[in-house]
Every structure is written in structure tokens, then in C-alpha cells.
């Protein structure tokens, strides 16, 4: 697949925009997923995904073919989200339908418990410091390995471990205090 990707990139560098469609189709899901989880389910996900791919195409001349395209693309994705959040000056983004107090149903079923706990989890996730949240999202939601995360974020594997450890602990400490967690046990 990497060989095919490189061939497509060479064609794109020669001005063949149509070839880029293959890359957008192949990586669009993952790029959108990363953005979606990092900015907290905002409706701006599609706008940012579009911006990521436009940036990638415009900077293809700077992409060294010895590197992995996916790593480079995901790095652009993360940096684009960072820029977006900086401009928004938003540390947490909670959708309107998730800002209210957790409803307490009359009868608590296992499914309802899990759903409410997930809602709380997502809310707390958005409150994590950005560098911890990024690592957690890449690991738990996107299934990146430690090495892949380190390559995308341009840091050491030890740093990834440390941030992931703190992110998990922080989330656990928050949700363990809730009744939902106790009932979930």
C-alpha cells in the first residue's frame, strides 16, 4: 500500500488533482475521527478535515517520500486541531445536548448505566489537558501504537507512555467518584 501511496503522491506533485481523491478516501475516515474526538463532537469536524487535506495537498512538495505519508498527514491533522482550539480559546467543548445534568431514570438498566457513564466520560475527556487528550484519543479511539503516536506528535515513546498514564488516571479518578461507576462495577 505504501508503494501505491508514493505513486499517487508523485502524480499529485505533477499536478494531477484527481489522484489525490484516493488519498482523501483512504485517510478521510481516520482524519475526521481524530478531529471529531479532539474538538468534542463539534459540527466543525468536516471543515477542519477539508482544511487538513487542502494543507496536505499544498505542502506535498515538502513531503519526503522516505517518510510515512500517514504519519505526516496525522501530524498535520493534530496541528490543525491545535490551531483551531487556540483560536477558539476553548479548553473544553461540550455539545449543548450534553451539558445538562445527567438524567436519573426511574429504572436503571445496564444499557442506560453504560450510556450515561459514557456521556460523563466524554465530558471529562474534553476537560483533559490537550496533550493528554491527544495521546488518549490516538491510542484508545484510533488504535495507534506507542511508536505511531510518538512519530505523529514528534516526541519520545516515554513521553507518550507518561501522558497516556496520566490521562487514564485522571479520567478514572473523575468517574470513580460517580454513582454510575459504582453501579457499573
Amino acid at each position, binding site marked *: 500500500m505504501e508503494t501505491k501511496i508514493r505513486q499517487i503522491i508523485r502524480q499529485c506533485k*505533477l499536478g494531477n488533482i484527481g489522484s489525490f481523491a484516493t488519498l482523501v478516501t483512504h485517510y478521510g475516515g481516520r482524519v475526521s475521527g481524530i478531529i471529531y*474526538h479532539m474538538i468534542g463532537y463539534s459540527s466543525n469536524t*468536516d471543515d477542519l478535515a477539508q482544511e487538513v487535506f487542502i494543507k496536505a495537498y*499544498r505542502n506535498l512538495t515538502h513531503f519526503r517520500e522516505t517518510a510515512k505519508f500517514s504519519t505526516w498527514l496525522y501530524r498535520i491533522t493534530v496541528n490543525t486541531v491545535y490551531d483551531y482550539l487556540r483560536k477558539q480559546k476553548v479548553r473544553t467543548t461540550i455539545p449543548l445536548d450534553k451539558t445538562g445534568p445527567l438524567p436519573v431514570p426511574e429504572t436503571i438498566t445496564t444499557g442506560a448505566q453504560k450510556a450515561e457513564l*459514557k456521556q460523563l*466520560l466524554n465530558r471529562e475527556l474534553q476537560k483533559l489537558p490537550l496533550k493528554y487528550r491527544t495521546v488518549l484519543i490516538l491510542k484508545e479511539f484510533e488504535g495507534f501504537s506507542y511508536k505511531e503516536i510518538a512519530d505523529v506528535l514528534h516526541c519520545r515513546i516515554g513521553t507518550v507512555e507518561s501522558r*497516556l498514564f496520566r490521562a487514564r488516571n485522571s479520567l478514572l479518578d473523575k468517574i470513580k467518584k460517580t454513582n454510575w461507576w459504582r453501579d457499573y462495577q
Partner: protein
Amino acid sequence: MLNRYLDHILAPGEEVNLQEHIRICPQCRNRLREIEQLQELLGTETAYEPNPFLWTRVKAGLQEPNSVPGLFPLPVIIKAWVPLAILIILLAIFTLSRIPGVENQSLYHKPQSMETTIMQIPGTPENLERITINLLVYGNGMPGKTLDIFN
């Protein structure tokens, strides 16, 4: 260590040791279970469905000017050095033109023609002659020079 164990990045020896420790340590056992449950919750998160028209949007954005990479694009480092190189060359030309002895038509005056008139000055005992030489100088609008020689 528990995180590394769950992510399967421990060395085989370390893994065995940790498993043995978890077996006898209830605190670590509980913590491990909690992290596993957290991972389970996070793992059940619904995957985001990308916009099916993402390529259409990207293509529309790329249609704008300066979106297409050049056929023979110059690396950024070369583009940055080009204006600087031009500036250095201009500076060198200007500096060299100031060095004395360097032939430069704008500073070296070559008379293109010469007009000579000789007039006798009346009333002078030695019949002095006034010789006027007009040098018409070329270049840069420099005025001519008039030399008066009394002979």
C-alpha cells in the same frame, strides 16, 4: 507498569513477573481491572462516519489559486535565498563602482571634443594671448571645462 501490561509492550520476563505480582496484590489487581473497564468503555465509542462529500469539498478548496503544486517547484530554502542573492549582487556592483581605479564610464571623463580659441589681449605689452580651450566632456551630463592659458 500496568498500562504497559495492558498495551502488551512489556518484555516476556516482565510480563510474567507482573502477573505474579497481580495475583498476590489486591490493590494492583483492582487498579488493573479499573483500567480495563475504562478501556472497554472508551472502546465502545462509536466510530465517526466521515462526510461522504469530503473529496468534493477538498476539490472545491483546491480549485482556488495557489492550490496546485508547481510542476518544478523550488524548495522553500532556495526560494528564500533568491532575493537575498540578488541583493548581495547589487550591493557588490555598487561597492565595486566606488573603488578608485576601477574603470567606470560614469566617473571617468573622456573629452569628446575640444574647441580652442586664441585671442590676443589688447593693451598688454607682451601681447598676451589668451588661449581658451573648451573640453566637451562625455557622460553623466558633466559640464565642459574651460581652460584659460595666458601665453
